[in-house]
């Protein structure tokens, strides 16, 4: 299923709250948690990560991966946490509003 536009950054930020993670891990985690509903393509994941880096919402460090390759681990920054909270609230309001419109008698 395609993601709603603009929600990928939010989901990535939320995923990172559980600790540092590399790109592959993030994609896996999104897929698992959404029970295979959300398929995040690599071609949109990496630009999204770059965007978050650029905005200073995540930090990146190199570390060893499970298969002993060099992998880049992303960590949520304080600014990122704040941004997540703000966006989450925004998103809930938006969904609520959409729901209300759809539910109208």
């Amino acid at each position, binding site marked *: 299923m395609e993601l709603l536009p603009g929600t990928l950054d939010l989901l990535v930020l939320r995923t990172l709250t559980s600790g540092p993670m*590399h790109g592959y891990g993030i994609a896996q985690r999104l897929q698992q948690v959404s029970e295979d509903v959300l398929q995040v393509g690599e071609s949109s994941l990496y630009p999204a990560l770059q965007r978050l880096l650029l905005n*200073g919402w995540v930090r990146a460090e190199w570390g060893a991966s499970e298969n002993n*390759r060099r*992998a*880049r681990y992303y960590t949520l920054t304080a600014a990122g946490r704040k941004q997540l909270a703000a966006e989450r609230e925004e998103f809930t309001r938006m969904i609520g509003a959409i729901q209300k419109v759809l539910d109208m008698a």
Partner: protein
Amino acid sequence: MTPSVPTFLARGWRRLTFRWRRTRLERDLAEEIECHRSLKQAEHARAGLSPQDARELSSREMGNIAIAKEECRDMWGFIRLERLMQDLRYAARMFVRTPGFTVIAVLSLAIGIGGNAAMFSLVDTLLVRPLPYRDPGRLMRVTGIYPRAAVPVFQQRSRAMDVAAVSVGSEFNLTGQGEAIRVFTSAVSANLFAVLGAAPARGRVFEPGEDSPGRDSVMMISDAVWKNQFGGDPTVVGRVIALNGINREIVGVMPPGFSFPSAKVDAWVPLRLDSSNFLEYWGTEFVPLVCRLRPGATLQKAQAEIRALVTQFRATFPYPMARDWNADAAAILLQTDLVGDIRGKLIILLTSVGVVLLIACANVASLLLSRATTRRKEIALRVALGAGRLRIVRQLLTESVLLATVGGGMGVLLGMSALSVFKSVLPAATPGLAQASIDWQVGGAVAALALLTGVAFGIAPALSASQIDLAQSIRTGSQRSTGSVWSRLRSCLIGAEVALTVVLVVSAGLLMRSLLTLAETHPGFQPEHILTVRISPNQSACRERAACVALYERLLSSAREISGVEDAAVVNVLPLDGPQPSLPIDVERHPKLADHPAPLFWAGAISPDYIRMLHIPLLAGREFTEADGATSAGVLLITPSTARYFWPGENAIGKHIRIAGEQQWRTVVGIVGDVRQYGLGTDRPLWIPGAMYMPYTQSAREDGKIIAAMTLVVKTRGESAHLAHEIRSLAEEQDPSAPVGPVQPLDKIVSGSISDFRSTIRVFLSFAGAAMMLAAIGIYGLVSYWVSQRTFEIGVRVAIGASRRRIIAMVLMQGLRVSLYGVAAGLLAALAVTRFLASLLYGVAATDPGTFFTVIALVGAVAGTATAFPAWRAARIDPVKSLRVD
């Protein structure tokens, strides 16, 4: 997702750092993505796929990674900026490749923009920028001039205004501080500085009451006098110096740039309000009034009040006053008043430089249009390679804006030198003129102008180039395919250019005619071989008439002894040199009426030889002789225009005239030719109906005293340069306390009196010259382009037997048709607008047919020459070669 401001800034900063670490980022991203793929591959392998299959599947699943990488790369830099840089680099390369085009375009724009930069700064300083005083919008000038007695009346009775008075000023002797000098001094009411809201740089301004008798021995000086005469001495406040022989204490120094009421004024003294001094209080010099509207008062209220006050005051005059005296008095903005008639001149100049810029723009636009057409193939290629229409337009606009920016940069440099030329066109005493400079505000305006012109002349070529039929352009190389709309637009541009040029050249021509007429005007005397020097003893030195006469007798006799001096005389004022003196006069049997107060006469005081030395013709009667001394009967010389005015059809010799207030009548003994005292191009002002000469020994001012300050005039034999020094030191010896001016040849004074006018003409000539050059380039470009477009056609014509002459005629027709339309339009426009020049013209009508015909011939000749070159080239087209080209 809208980031907050700090995030936005942080992002910009990171972008900047990312930009520098690009290669590392690129490597990191590639490694990261590869790691991602290998983890995928490992998982597939765990699920039981063969290593080969696992690798392939993982690669496929990654999708279009190239696009993702591209997207990331865009984020790492300032992609728009980089595209702009790319466009700029490309544009610069294009310009370097066509240096002729580039130089012409940049120069045209530099001329246009430079002139505008200079004019902007003048207009900004003089017309736009508010006066440098507190709340300048409420500062007014009350029109008309008023005796001192009016000042307290206005000050006490006005409810809507705070009223101050300020005299135009005159030269005073400043002594007691180094060499005696002449300082232009304005007398002001004590509240003037408070009304203006101007603060001193040192010391204080005048205090209330310092314009009353007994308390007025104070003065203020300008920054220039403080620096030049007092060496910037910080203890100058409190020092006592002598001004016209009266000791005054310096109480304050005004800051640099304070130039009120004019830039000439270098000192201020209180305008003494002494009702017991009848002549000073009611007569002598009338002064202008300025005022500040009080808080809450409206302009309408002030106007009504001024009318009422003038009416009340008129009735209190102790002598008859014209019933309509100052009846039209009103408050006008002080700024408007200070700028005065310069406004018209400025607007004419501003319009002219605007026209030059328009011509430059039309020229560059036309050049770019033809370039755009010859670049069709290149552009078509770029479109074929995937460049969007917007991208092409942007590229071409970048080129034109780059041109305009370079032109603008050079224009600012040019403007700096143009500014000093423009300044010389305006009267030097204009307040604020010296301060006009090309500052950052003008720079900003110029930048905006450059950008605007860049877009203005770039938009049409860019649009024309972007409408390209791909296949056809590439196939034919597009030598012959032209959008007819765009080539017609080009002809219109050139036609308009020629029209504007005609307007400018006609204006310059009319001004030239005026200058020639002026230069040929006979001023009424012969200024050749005459040296002059001004000597200004204090009036107190001439308390005794005899002492003053003796001083000048001594001066004259020792001047005559200098070898090389043929003759010497003194005169109170030289023709065409500064303010001219006038006296109220009673004319025998011309009774004064309430509506016709005593007429003013121009009043010269001369030693007997003056008339002969300047070759002023004696028309009737006799000249003055040494016998017309201080104690003999009063005699006068008058001019023919005076005789005609007062005694039409009668013999004026023997008639009697008396200076108002005197008891003795003076007798007219001779009539000498009229002299242009006030200006080469002007007669006496209307309010001065007569002119008379008194013998120096009998001379009188309003107060009946002899005139102290005189000018020594010597006639020299041949070369006079070495005499200047001798004459000056001779003058200095007579009275060490009397300031002596510079030695000036009279013919220099005469030509200097129209130097404003000369510079105006120089400016107009350079405008017209620039316009003509631009138009010639424009026509040349248009016709050469036309020829290059029709090489094939001309080849065919020659091949089927057209003669060279026919080809030349065909091309000439092409160029001349455009010029003809342009000239016709220009003539109509010139007929419509030259009347705005009328105030600058002398002795020539604004629609002078001679000038118009000359201009037609001149512009026609230039257009013909500009067309001849391409026509000649067309005639040499080799049909064999031209047919093989495409």
